């Protein structure tokens, strides 16, 4: 049985993690997303959407679910994995002082493929938070452990301040792609990579659903090659894309093994290339879909 990919949402108290969780649970994305949260009380789901609620687990009519971490990560994850319907993705909302990189290891206890670490940042308060004598170090680690940083509440600060914070982030968290958001309104395709390696079968469509979107400051583009590419060249490409993309995904026509398809999945600066079955005859070509900042 394949296991759903695992996404960690980190960031300090008040950055907008719970708002993000509410989006994930209720947006019309058609995915069954399980979200593990620390504080059930803060999750704000319309009562009409709730199919059942048994104290520590809330099931929604749209197939999503939300589990409380009150009794520990293991209990919550068991509640998700033991369900009859397989979930498409598992998202954990880390506590405000947790290091998301450590939380990411939790998923590996259960062999869940790590889909990404998203750190949400409060554009107004981040500079103060990193100076705080109690939590400053943790907040810095939260930035450095991110695959993608959501610079949230960007609508709450003046353009000049936003520019300053962006400039500061570029040195405080170098090479980590930053997406500006207001009310945590990040597109799902950036948040969740849709399917770990185990789900990569020829039937799964590979397209990101969003294209260039003027409301958001991101765009998608496709890299195509008809000739086989060497593994080293792919690694170079992925490394170069690094801070310029949020995610990239696509099949590779690998020069070293032209009979088989290879799947590249990249989030920020982290990528994996895995074997994904044989090419359908004549279809072998590299096609990588990228999603990144508009000026990326």
């Amino acid at each position, binding site marked *: 049985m394949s296991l759903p990919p695992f996404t960690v949402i980190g960031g*300090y*108290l*008040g950055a907008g993690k719970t708002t993000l969780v509410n989006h994930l649970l209720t947006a019309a994305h058609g995915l069954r997303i399980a979200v593990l949260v*620390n*504080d*059930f*009380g*803060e999750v704000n789901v319309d009562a009409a959407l709730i199919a059942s609620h048994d104290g520590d687990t809330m099931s929604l009519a749209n197939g999503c679910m939300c589990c409380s971490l*009150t*009794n*520990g*990560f*293991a*209990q919550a*994850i*068991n509640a998700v994995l033991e369900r009859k319907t397989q979930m498409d993705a598992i998202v954990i909302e880390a*506590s*405000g*002082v947790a*290091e998301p990189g450590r939380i990411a*290891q*939790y998923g*590996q*206890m*259960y*062999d869940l493929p790590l889909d990404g670490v998203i750190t949400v940042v409060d554009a107004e308060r981040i500079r103060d938070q990193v100076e*705080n*004598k*109690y*939590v400053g*170090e*943790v907040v810095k680690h939260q930035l450095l452990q991110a695959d993608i940083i959501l610079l949230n509440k960007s609508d709450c600060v003046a353009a000049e301040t936003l520019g300053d914070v962006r400039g500061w982030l570029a040195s405080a968290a170098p090479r980590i792609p930053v997406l500006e958001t207001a009310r945590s309104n990040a597109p799902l395709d950036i948040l969740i990579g849709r399917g770990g390696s185990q789900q990569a079968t020829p039937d799964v469509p590979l397209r990101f659903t969003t294209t260039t979107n003027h409301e958001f400051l991101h765009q998608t583009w496709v890299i195509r090659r008809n000739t086989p590419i060497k593994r080293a060249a792919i690694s170079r490409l992925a490394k170069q894309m690094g801070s310029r993309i949020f995610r990239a995904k696509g099949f590779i026509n690998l020069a070293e093994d032209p009979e088989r398809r290879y799947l590249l999945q990249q989030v920020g600066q982290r990528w994996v290339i895995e074997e994904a079955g044989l090419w359908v005859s004549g279809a072998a070509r590299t096609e990588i879909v990228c999603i990144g900042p508009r000026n990326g």
Partner: protein
Amino acid sequence: MVNELTRRQAVILTATAAASSALNIRRSSADGAKVAETIFHNGTILTMVDATPRVAAIAVANGRIIALGDETSVMALKGDATTIVDLQGATLLPSFIDAHGHFMNAPQILGWVNVQGVPAGPVRTIPDVIAALEAYKAKNNPKPGDWIIGYGYDMTNFAEGRNMTRGDLDPSFPDNPVMLIHSSNHGCVLNSAGFKAVGMDASTKTPPGGLILREPDSNEPAGLIMETAFLPIFAKMPQPSEDEMLARLDAAQQIYAMKGVTTCQEGATHAGDLDFLRKGAEQGLFYLDIISLPLFVEVPKMVTEYFPSFNAAGGAVPPEAASAFGTYKNRLKLGGIKFACDGSPQGKTAFWSKPLLTPGPSGEANWRGQPLFPPELINKAVAEAVSKNIPVFAHCNGDAAIDMMIDALRQAGVKAEQDRRSVIVHSQFMRPDQLDSYVELGITPSFFTAHAFFWGDIHLENLGQERAFFLSPMKSAQGKGIRFSNHNDFSVTPLEPMRMTQTAMDRLSRKGVVIGPDERVDVWTALKALTIDAAFQIREEKDKGTLETGKLADLVILEADPTTTDVEKISTIEVVETFKEGKSVYKRKAA
């Protein structure tokens, strides 16, 4: 000579008894309480009152102390039905108050086998572990397939100096899965039946952040698994049913009563635990007092459960809930709200302002730990508790965590003159300047001096002499006029009031280092931290903690007087009998 004295005493006693019973007839019509049900005499009686530390006799009726003083005046209260307890030279004092511990661990570990090292358990060698497990098996007759679970496994206790393997366990336990939980609670040793039961074998990959020791020359798991390899398995272990847990409440209370403790603390109560404790109370299963401290993160859940119409968002507490704190109902009392700012110093998860001298738990350099919660969250919840007059109890081990709680209390407007008695539990690695803040805010620490014995050597290595020697700084606190209690944090360390007394006095580590010679206190102070000062901390000093007329007859008889016993022997003093409100709740079996 002896005979003569005894005869003379007997004559006096008889005469007094006759006189008093004549008086009693008159008194009992006017004041029924003035006939003693029980009189204790002929031993050392420590009142824990500074001005009158010792008396000759004490009289008890209707669960309270009705008189104490010299033999004659107390014996004057003897009636026809009075039981006279001859202490035979033993020592009577107020029974002990568990100033901080986890009562819910008691029914849990009762289903497990203690495989801790000496003195917390019976283990010095690997065969000692097997023997303890075999004794459990002989007594409980588990069916094939039933788990046998031991707790407190630690290879550093073994003379053999190696980890146990499945091969050590398999010959004695071929049909029962065995799990020996590591003393850190972060790992275990399994036997072959255990590995089969959890579905772990040679094909199991070691997860990142985990450890599966393998057999030499093969990929078969050898026995020990740790961290991420262990946690998923432990979470799926079968749990005892609520009825099983309720049936264990008597034995759970005996863990306390046999050590002379009659007020027990459940010091980090989850919502489910509170439901369980309330059920136990409603069924009348408690004969000791239980103080529950609901965890602040669980408070919204509890409020929603008990006050469904109240909006518990943001941790708000309705006035009716606030009034539920502070009074016993069927021996269960909500004592306050429990906060937690950090982890444990021995696990290096406490939160210090300066780095340790050794690497962090995952090898981090310049490690000073981390807070458990954002200060904003703590500040808000503390302010809510303070505004509703609910006592605050806060777990803080490192000085940065202590700073966080001092900040929170100060921001909530707490001042010493308000007499709130906010408790900083452990206050383990304070800075000297923080004691002044304790005075300013009326904070009372509950110290944990047994750390000097159990982990003193490790603290010295991690923190250096200056910081390690200031652990649980009783003498400095006393110098500032701060009242404090002492605790074992049961079941982190075993419940041992006499070891607490000794460690407060000698602060000796296992290796024999005095962990802070300047912070040693005298025996009277050490005992007050388990009695009257612990009672003060939980606002029960009018009823508990000293032997005074009108107070509850919560008493303990010790086989020897700790105030005259050599310090190094105090921890071995045994309890002869324990009384809760005049009723015997534990009596040592005659040797």
